[in-house]
Each structure stands twice: as C-alpha cells, then as structure tokens.
C-alpha cells in the first residue's frame, strides 16, 4: 500500500498482467545483482587487456598473438635492486629437443653463474629423460646417470617466465612479479617464505633455500645476490644481470650442441622470432594456460 503512494506518474498502469510490472526494489536489486556479476566477470578481462596494451608489437606482426599476451603482472613500477631496469624487449627462449643430448652442461653453467648454493640441493634447470614416442612427464627420469642414451630423449625444464604466471598470482605479498620485458623476478628482501609459489608452479621451477647457500669465495659471481637468498625462494631469471646488458643466458652459452636459442620476440630478425615463425613449436603444459615464454622444437 505504501509503495503505491510513492509511485510516480511514469509508472506502468496497474492493469498490466502480472510479470510485466516490476517493483522498483526488485528492479534495482536485479540491476545491482546483474551489474555485480558483470563487473566480477569483467575485472580480470579488463586487467588482462590493459596488460596486453602495454606490450606493443613493433614490426613483428606474425607473432603478435604471442607478444600481445605477454606483459607485466603485478609489476610495482620498479624492478628488483639486483637488475637493470627492463628495456623494450620481449625475452623468449626456444629449446631444440632433437639436438639436446642431456649432458647437463647448461645445469652446471647455470649453477655457477647464478650463485646457487653448492649445498642448496637444487638447480634452476632440471633435465628430464623420457622414453621415445611420448611426451610423458609423469614417467620422466630426472636422476639419470649420464646423458646421450640413444634410446631416450631429453627435455630441459626451468622457469618458463610465464605470461600468466601462477606463482605471481599466488604470492600473498606481491614479493614476485613479472617485469614488462617478461622476466619473472623475486624481491628477496620481501619474500615471507610461505612457499606458496612452489605449490602453484606447474613446472617445479621454484626452489627454497632451506640452508644458507655456500659457495667457495673464488667462485662467487659478484653480479648476482648470494647471502640475501638464504631462507627465501629463488629461480631462473633468464640471467637478468647479463641479458639486460645485451648478453645471453649462461645456459645458452654453455650448450655444446646449440640447442638453446635466446632472444627478443619484438625483433623480427632474432633467432627466436625466426624459429617461431618458421618451425612448428610447442610449449610444456600448454593446456594449463600459463603461456610459457620457453618453446620447444623437435
């Protein structure tokens, strides 16, 4: 009754069949709920399209689909203290599994280059030995003695620098993020050691320093942090201290068969751009939607 008295002249006439009229409250409630639902659904879309807009595609139209999804995630506007500021590149790597002989030289070069504690018990790169005829990670062997078995094939796995990195999404304190050039970095001063990123990473690429990392004085790389990595997470950074100064990664350099190619996707003449344009490539766990920045080619 009281509702009737508040009705304005613009309200529908009373003789309409039921269902054609909506009380204002019902209508507003419905609009509110719909808007809420639409907004909730749209927020991730808006966020991701804003991120996509950041990554321009200068002169590499054919790879625009890959580059567009590539951008900063949770980037605080400034990179970590141990790296140069990010440039305009979109870093990527292509690994030729046909060439890889599983010698693990990339693993050793990486350990030396990145000040991985010799007592830490992990390496950034893990080389999987698999049976022929399958890409079967579930039955892969990590602990093989020696590479080069002609009845097997080898696939190195490391941080994929994902465009949609579950580790970055999962970090409760934003201590890890993705720089605009695509490198996922960790702020060692901020990491709270919750290890949720180890849990969220589908590639086993993140490692925790359960011990104080120890390295002989002569072997310490002064360009890479060491002591601040005690009790926090670390992982492959695409050798951020080299690549942002025009160099290549230690693993690319160390590979005796040239199975690794590292470069800039924004540059159409880079090896990675040419490989992605001319060869049929695949990514590990593509179905997870993490958009890794390491491709494999066979």
């Amino acid at each position: 009754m009281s509702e009737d008295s508040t009705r304005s002249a613009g309200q529908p006439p009373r003789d309409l069949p039921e269902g054609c009229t909506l009380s204002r409250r019902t209508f507003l409630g419905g609009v509110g709920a719909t808007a809420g639902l639409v907004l909730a659904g749209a927020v991730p879309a808006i966020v991701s399209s804003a991120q996509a807009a950041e990554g321009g595609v200068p002169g590499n139209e054919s790879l625009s689909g890959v580059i567009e999804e590539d951008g900063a995630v949770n980037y605080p506007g400034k990179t970590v203290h141990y790296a140069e500021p990010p440039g305009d590149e979109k870093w990527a790597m292509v690994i030729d599994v046909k060439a890889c002989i599983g010698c693990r030289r990339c693993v050793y070069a990486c350990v030396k280059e990145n000040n991985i504690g010799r007592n830490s018990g992990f390496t950034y790169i893990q080389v999987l030995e698999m049976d022929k005829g399958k890409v079967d990670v579930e039955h892969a062997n990590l602990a093989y003695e020696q590479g080069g078995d002609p009845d097997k094939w080898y696939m190195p796995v490391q941080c994929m620098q994902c465009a949609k990195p579950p580790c970055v999404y999962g970090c409760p304190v934003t201590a890890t993020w993705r720089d605009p050039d695509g490198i996922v970095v960790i702020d060692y001063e901020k990491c709270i050691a919750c290890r949720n990123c180890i849990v969220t990473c589908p590639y086993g690429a993140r490692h925790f320093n359960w011990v104080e990392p120890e390295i002989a004085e002569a072997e310490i790389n002064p360009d890479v942090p060491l002591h601040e990595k005690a009790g926090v997470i670390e992982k492959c950074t695409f050798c951020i201290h080299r690549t942002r100064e025009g160099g290549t990664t230690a693993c690319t350099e160390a590979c005796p068969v040239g199975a690794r190619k590292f470069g800039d996707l924004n540059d159409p003449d880079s090896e990675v751009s040419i490989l992605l344009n001319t060869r049929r490539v695949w990514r590990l766990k593509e179905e997870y939607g993490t958009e890794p920045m390491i491709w494999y080619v066979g």
Partner: protein
Amino acid sequence: MAEKAISRPGVKRVIGVDLDFGALRTAGPRYWAFVSLLVTVIGLGVMAWGVLLTHGGSVMAMRDSYPWGLWFTNYMYYVGLSAGGLVVYASVHLFNAKQFAPLSRLAVLQAGVLVMMALLGIITDMERPWRAVWMLLTPNFNSPFIYTGSAANIYMIICFVDLWILITGKGGHKLAHRMTLIALPFAVYLHTTTAFVLSLNKSRELWNSAVMVPIFLTSATASGVALLLICAYVMQRIGAMKFKPSMFRSLSTLLATVIIIDLFLLAVEILTVFWPTSAKPGHALRLAEFFTGEYAIAFLPVLVLGLGAFALLAGRSTRHLPVVQITASVMYVVAIFLKRYSLMAMGFAVDPLGQYSAPYLPSLVEVLIALGLLAVGLLIMTLSAKVLPLRVPEEDSAEPDQVVLASHAPEQALEVG
C-alpha cells in the same frame, strides 16, 4: 562442594568477567603437575623454534618436494576441529537446540583456541615472522592465502568476543543470537578459503577439484562433532555435567550423517580419478600412490576407520551404547588427522614434473614445535577452566575443578590424533 565458597575471595572482575584466581590457589597437586608438564613442553617447543630460527629451514624435514609439512597438516586439522564447537554453539541459538546449551561457552572457547593454535603454526613455520607485515601492506588479492589468513584471524577474534558476550551476558540473548549469524557464515568462509589454498592450484592435480571445498566442510564438521561427543561423555563421566541420553543419540545421528556425506564426497572424487573414461595419468598415477604405494599406510585407514565409524553408528541394536558412540567418534577424529596428512601428501608425493619423493615424516624440531603449540592450547584451556566462568549458570551441579578436567578432554583427544 566447598570449593565454591572458598573461591569467592579470589575473584577479580576484569572487563566484566569474573576471573576466579582463588581457584588456582586451591588447585590440587595433580593440577599443578599437569600445568608444569605443559610449561615444560612449551619450553621445548620454544627451544625448537629457536633452533629453527638460528639454523634455518634445513632442520625441518620439509624440502622443495614437500614445501609444506606438519604445520600445514595441523593448520587444516585444527581449523576443522574448531568448527565442531561453533556448530554446537550456533545450533543452540539458531535451532534452539537447548540440550547443547551447557556446552556453549566451552565450545566457543575451544573453537577460538584451536584457530589460534593453527595461526601460531604458521608464524612458527616462517623463518622471518616479521615479514608477515607485508600481508597487510601489499596484499595480493589473487592469492588464497590472503583470504584464509584474514578469515582465521577474524574468526578467532569473533570466537573470543562471542565468549565474552556469553559470559557477561551483555546484550542478552538477542546479541548472542546475532553473533551466531556472523560467526557461522565466517566458519563456513574459513573452511572454504582453507580448501581454496589447496584446490585453486592447477599445478597440483589431486587438489585441483571443486569437491575439495565441501569435503573440507564435512570433514571439519564430522571431526568437530566427534570431538565434542567425546568431550561430553568425559564431562558426564566425571559428573561435571548431565546430559540426556537423547542428546547423545541426536549428536551421534548428526555425526553418522555427516560422516557418510564426507565419505560419499571422497568416493565420487576417487571414482572420477580412476574411471576409465575420465582417468588422466596426472591424477591416476598420483592417487595410486595412496592405494598401492607407500602412502597406503596413511590413506587406507581413512577409508576403513570412516566406514567402520559409520557402521558402528548405523547398527540399530548397538548405536545407543556409549562405548559404541565413543569408539566411533575416536575412530573418526583419528581418521580426519590421517586424511589431512594424506591430503597434504597428495599434492606433494609426486611433484609437477612427475618425480616421486619418499613419504614426508616430520623432523624432531617440527614435532617439538607442534607439541609446544598443542601445549599452549592445552595450557590456555587448563587455566581458563579454573579462572574463567565457563559453567553456564543453569548448570548448578557442575563443580569448578571438575570442569577443569572435563575441558582437557578435547585436547587429549587431539593428542590421540
């Protein structure tokens, strides 16, 4: 009986609560022996934490393959057990379940203390606890940690505020009723977000299932109610409180119902993993470790104890017997601990690159820290049972010192788990 008269002089009123310090003075030697045992265990736990802080995480059995261990198992377990107390407290006010009313203060206190133990478990796991402040300064709202962490903190505060309202009677029945309307949804929210910490990971196949959320809710309720049933029997046994047999019948009916829903959800999950048209190697190979691998020793008892508990409670001719109800409850409290442990291991036994790691068993440091935390919870319960007016006024028959013993029951049952 004379206790009540003697204890009066020692009473101090703090924020409207009559704290009965006089009861501590008259406490017997067995009480103090128990307290000093707890203090010793806490001391050992603090020492173990010191070892952890000075030597780093390598003193724990956790490694990259098992990034979370005993603390996480206990987090899930304690948070779950606390639900039981809240369900009972809420049912008093929401469903007018008057038979549970004498338990309400104890139930709310127990819920708050259990969540506090769960939160302390996180703090003692961190090598640099002060960095936790970043959770407030730069939270990442994509991370389920933010939700479960804040939920547990707020829930703990709600429980203690609730306890205060129940004891002081401020706001009367109306406010107590309204607090239930806040506390119960928050309990559901807490368990949902705790399940999300597991289920929102596409990297961990066996966790990445929406059914994880209802399983968390049913497991929590079942184990909590089972614990409460044990507690109520202990109280009755020592004469602290009197319950009608019909109360136990309805409690065990509730328990049986929740157990069978819990087992049903687990069964459909297992079926989905192994059914030929849905089995994926990532799921099936991982779960197979829990049926035929080294983890079978932890996981198969979950099914056996669960089905056994249900069978005991379902038998028409025996289900009214106290011994049957207690046995079934103990079986399920133990089963849920093993289930939490298995659940933790399901994410980690086979890592994302298909590598199997030998079963995780906590190191001495981890065990001592966990026992220390348990002792903290027990100590709070022990002291507050003497000092706090936990008795609900209507229950005139309850003696203060007997309430003390009674309130140990839930915690002792924890130790069993």
